[in-house]
């Protein structure tokens, strides 16, 4: 009910095609953020139809309306807040009996609603015929049999939407109430709960939730009731044991009755496909998953590369712009900010967006097709030890290539806390840039012993992940919130590239503005600190670096190494370049980070003669486990929507890298 616009809330279990409908309706008009004060992602969109403006709220995909998770509480609170004019409940036509559970759980909530029997095409393929009209007559609300993937055939959806809003259609719950009333003690309990004690909820609904052991609903009721009525309520409530089973049986018996004469019974058979056989194989499953993720990563470059090339345009543009500014006698500060900060950042941002676009497209497809659920199953045991879902394995694998991709691919993790924890851990995985410079540095300094350095880095990575999981896990995924997997493995669907493409493109646009807000200020700050009219000695960074050198030396870093360390949080590729620039007294620090300095001859010799073995070793560990790069930081902010957690993770990694550097340096002094 925002500015005369009608608000629709989409409610459905995971895999009911809720996101498909949301994307189909709103296209690129979407906004993603967090629910106010909650760590749950909020997806909102808008569309217009027949001159009417609509707002769509995509409620989190949950299996019920109980209070088992933040997602469920957010969903419930939103519906009872009355902010939605109508709730659109989705069910999967191919698994109607099971997926109508959400509808039965909704029964008793008085917000107008209508029902979408989605995935009609899949049901038809299974030989199921569904009579939506019969279901409609029993429920008293509009019922539409449709496929949300078929964006051109939404006419029936809009008709149902209009009818539900104009007639304020509410669910006929009499048949279900009849079943509840047969439960021993139900009527007595219900009699104690006033209608609308929780706004928009019937006594029956609140009684059912009480029986099910819903602590939130129960607390609300106990808060409002007083005296004898409270005593009676509590004593009636205490009579129920394992209430969720009792109400669950009522709900499914109601669903069975609802479907008895409207759906033909087709005995569903499980077809285990070849892919499923390979994926769920006891021995090879994990290998297959790793191969699929690597394949996905490579595949994501196909859509990514054209966009990434577009980014190079900005880099190329910097040359003529610089010449023009120089010719116009512009101040070197203006030239620096325009060419080094803004154009260079835009180049990096566009490259990142291209990469994130590819990743989100491919891994979004994995999700849509049902593949992701299999990945989750295969890695559940491993990842649940850290309080994560099996899917979290993916951001880890992708991070070996690039942490930006790792952070982006965490989008498919549907629990915000687990998503933040996953990203926090994935930062510890050395990325492609680290792999590009560390082996080379190690070989220069330690010859054949370089192999040992690499092995040590991998061991420290595992230790880092383990410790970070303990530290962050305690806060993010609390013990009492950790429970075993109960997850549907949906049948494979053929994903719709077109719809997915538009949707991901829409989010990438959203991402651009968010990312610019992070990258430009950070790069500007770094540029200002490293700016000098003359030699490097004129920069603030030099002054700070040399002033605190006594402290950084404890960590095994002289001022040059420390500056390179700081620069590596902007981009690891530049770390060696910064050292070369500092020791050869040529080029600029900022230029070194972006690789725009001119090459320095005998740079290897330069490093070898200025840096000791233990220092080099400490430095390699420090930059490997430092903040991956400013773009990864922006990607983390983009996916978590939390400046606070992005800052915490950044601070943690900076500090962690210094501690690791300290330890490695002192161990190095002992053994070298």
């Amino acid at each position, binding site marked *: 009910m925002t500015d005369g616009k009608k608000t629709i809330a989409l409610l459905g279990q995971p895999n009911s095609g809720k996101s498909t409908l949301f994307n189909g309706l709103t296209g690129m008009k979407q906004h993603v953020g967090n629910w106010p004060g909650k760590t749950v992602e909020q997806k909102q969109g808008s569309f217009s139809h027949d001159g009417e403006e609509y707002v769509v709220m995509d409620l989190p995909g949950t*299996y*019920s309306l*109980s209070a*088992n998770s933040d997602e469920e509480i957010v969903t419930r609170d939103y519906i009872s807040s009355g902010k939605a004019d109508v709730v659109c409940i989705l069910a999967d036509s*191919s*698994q109607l*009996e*099971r997926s109508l*559970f959400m509808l039965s*759980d909704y029964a008793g909530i008085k917000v107008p609603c209508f029902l979408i029997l989605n995935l009609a095409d899949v049901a038809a393929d299974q030989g199921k015929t569904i009579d939506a009209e019969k279901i409609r007559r029993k429920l008293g609300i509009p019922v539409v049999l449709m496929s949300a993937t078929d964006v051109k055939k939404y006419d029936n959806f809009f008709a149902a939407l209009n009818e539900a809003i104009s007639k304020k259609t509410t669910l006929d719950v009499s048949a279900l109430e009849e079943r509840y009333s047969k439960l021993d003690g139900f009527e007595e309990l219900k009699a104690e709960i006033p209608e609308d004690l929780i706004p928009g909820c019937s006594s029956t609904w609140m009684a059912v939730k009480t029986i*099910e*052991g*819903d602590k939130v609903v129960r607390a609300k009721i106990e808060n409002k009731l007083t005296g004898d009525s409270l005593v009676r309520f509590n004593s009636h409530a205490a009579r129920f044991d*394992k*209430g*969720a*089973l009792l*109400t*669950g*049986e009522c*709900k*499914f018996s109601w669903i069975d009755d609802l479907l008895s004469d409207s759906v033909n019974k087709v005995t*569903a058979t*499980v077809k*285990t496909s070849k892919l499923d056989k390979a994926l*769920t194989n*006891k021995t090879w*499953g994990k290998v297959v998953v790793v191969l699929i993720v690597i394949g996905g990563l490579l595949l994501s470059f196909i859509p990514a590369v054209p966009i990434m090339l577009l980014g190079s345009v900005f880099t190329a543009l910097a040359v003529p712009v610089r010449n023009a500014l120089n010719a116009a006698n512009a101040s070197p500060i203006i030239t620096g900010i325009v060419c080094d900060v803004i154009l260079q950042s835009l180049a990096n941002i566009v490259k990142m967006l291209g990469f994130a676009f590819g990743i989100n497209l491919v891994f979004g497809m994995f999700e849509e097709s049902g593949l992701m*659920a299999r990945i*989750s*199953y*295969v890695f*559940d*045991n491993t990842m649940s030890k850290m309080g994560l879902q099996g899917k979290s394995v993916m951001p880890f694998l992708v991070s070996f290539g690039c942490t930006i991709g790792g952070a982006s691919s965490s989008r498919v993790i549907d629990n915000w806390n687990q998503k933040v924890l996953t990203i926090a851990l994935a930062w510890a995985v050395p990325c492609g840039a680290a792999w590009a410079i560390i082996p080379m540095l190690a070989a220069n300094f330690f010859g054949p012993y370089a192999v040992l350095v690499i092995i040590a880095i991998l061991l420290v990575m595992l230790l880092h992940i383990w410790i970070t999981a303990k530290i962050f896990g305690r806060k993010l995924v609390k013990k009492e919130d950790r*429970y*075993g*997997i*109960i*997850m*549907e*493995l*949906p*049948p494979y669907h053929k994903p719709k590239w077109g719809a997915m493409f538009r949707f991901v493109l829409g989010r990438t646009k959203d991402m651009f503005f968010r990312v610019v807000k992070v990258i430009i200020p950070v790069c500007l700050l770094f540029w200002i600190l490293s700016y000098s009219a003359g030699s490097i000695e004129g920069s603030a960074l030099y002054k700070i670096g040399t002033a605190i050198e006594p402290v950084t030396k404890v960590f095994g870093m002289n001022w040059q190494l420390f500056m390179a360390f700081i620069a590596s949080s902007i981009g690891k590729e530049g770390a060696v370049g910064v050292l070369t620039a500092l020791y050869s007294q040529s080029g600029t620090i900022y230029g070194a980070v972006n690789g725009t300095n001119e090459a320095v001859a005998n740079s290897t010799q330069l490093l070898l003669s200025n840096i000791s073995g233990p220092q080099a070793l400490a430095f390699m560990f420090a930059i490997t486990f430092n903040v991956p790069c400013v773009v990864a930081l922006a990607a983390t902010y983009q996916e978590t929507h939390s400046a606070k957690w992005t800052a915490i993770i950044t601070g943690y990694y900076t500090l962690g890298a210094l501690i690791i550097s300290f330890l490695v340096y002192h161990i190095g002094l002992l053994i070298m």
Partner: protein
Amino acid sequence: MKSLNELKPNSEGIVASIDGDARYLSRITSIGITPGCHIRVLKNDKNRPMLVFMRDTMVALNKEESKNIKIETRDN
């Protein structure tokens, strides 16, 4: 009667009872597992969740928690 986690692949039966705290019971019923429902075990590998089929749906279940689900199998 056996616990679900003891069943071998391809064995099937009817859910006789489910134990556990309120949260578990609420979660397990909301995915469709209730007493009286027919269930078939697809996979029961070591160090993996169980894979079962019920109400037209393939579901992965934590093995430890599956001890709570008692099944009346056909053969006993």
